[in-house]
């Protein structure tokens, strides 16, 4: 079953049969061994593993963007989202995360940015798996201590008039930034707005995307 699964993701099933020259690393062998043993012991099934991978593959920042776009057009929804993030997710047809979602709102006077200094806590059910840099030692070490410098490395220069609020997501809450709605989008539909709510803007290392002129 696992063999079948291995080939599932590739375009050319025969070309990807791992041959003896393709290196299997120590930790890759460990993964196969742990998974096989857990399946044999009846602790989990190969099908569950496959479904879990498919579920995560289907998740990306487009989910979080639905909430952001709704909040941009509906101020009452925005208030509910800031009070109870998980219920607000359900309201736009998303599933309720396993963790409590805290949405933090950017304003002209305050900018929020998310990190997990202990590992890589991330609202993955709304944004997909985190990017490598979010999990990197450099980001995790520095964004709590010199957020403005790190944001500058991402191309985001914040004016001195803006307060920076860092959220170290180390425990039982998960955080999502509600970015500022870009100017010039007053007449835009929710769907169109959602395309501006990028993953990085919901982590807080960027602003929402700049709209193309009409």
């Amino acid at each position, binding site marked *: 079953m696992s063999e079948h699964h*291995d080939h599932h993701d590739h375009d050319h099933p025969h070309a990807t049969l791992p041959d003896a020259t393709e290196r299997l690393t120590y930790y890759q062998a460990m993964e196969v*061994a742990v998974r096989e043993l*857990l399946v044999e012991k009846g602790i*989990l099934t190969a099908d569950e*593993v496959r479904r*879990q*991978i498919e579920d995560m593959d289907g998740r990306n920042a487009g989910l979080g963007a639905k909430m952001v776009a709704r909040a941009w057009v509906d101020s009452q929804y925005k208030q509910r989202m800031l009070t109870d993030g998980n219920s607000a997710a359900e309201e736009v047809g998303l599933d309720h995360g396993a963790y409590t979602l805290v949405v933090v709102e950017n304003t002209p006077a305050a900018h929020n940015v998310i990190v997990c200094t202990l590992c890589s806590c991330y609202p993955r059910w709304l944004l997909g798996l985190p990017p490598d840099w979010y999990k990197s030692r*450099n980001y995790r070490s520095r964004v709590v201590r010199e957020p403005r410098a790190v944001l500058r490395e991402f191309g985001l220069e914040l004016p001195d008039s803006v307060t920076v609020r860092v959220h170290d997501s180390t425990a039982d809450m998960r955080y999502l930034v509600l970015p500022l709605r870009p100017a010039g989008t007053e007449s835009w539909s929710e769907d169109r707005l959602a395309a501006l709510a990028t993953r990085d803007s919901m982590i807080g290392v960027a602003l929402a995307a700049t709209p193309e002129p009409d």
Partner: protein
Amino acid sequence: MGGQPAGPVQPTEHAYALWEKRVDALLVLLSRKDRRLMTVDELRRNIESLGPEAYDKMTYYERWIHSISQTLIQRGVLSIDELGRRMADVEARHEKGEL
């Protein structure tokens, strides 16, 4: 590691390999409330115990599968012996092109 000196943030990302996604899935499935065979705190503790040098040499999901296997051994779900034998078997099957 919050606040420790470190270099510039490289905005890197890569498409996760299937084996990495499987490691991720194993942790999610083992942590689920109906199983409760692992917690994020055990994941972190067993990663911390690697020490800084090993930590830096290993990739993210290498640290995770190390930690998952250690947790399962500590909890008595797997034994060191069966895991070691199975890994040898996996490597042998891979050599023969059977994996």
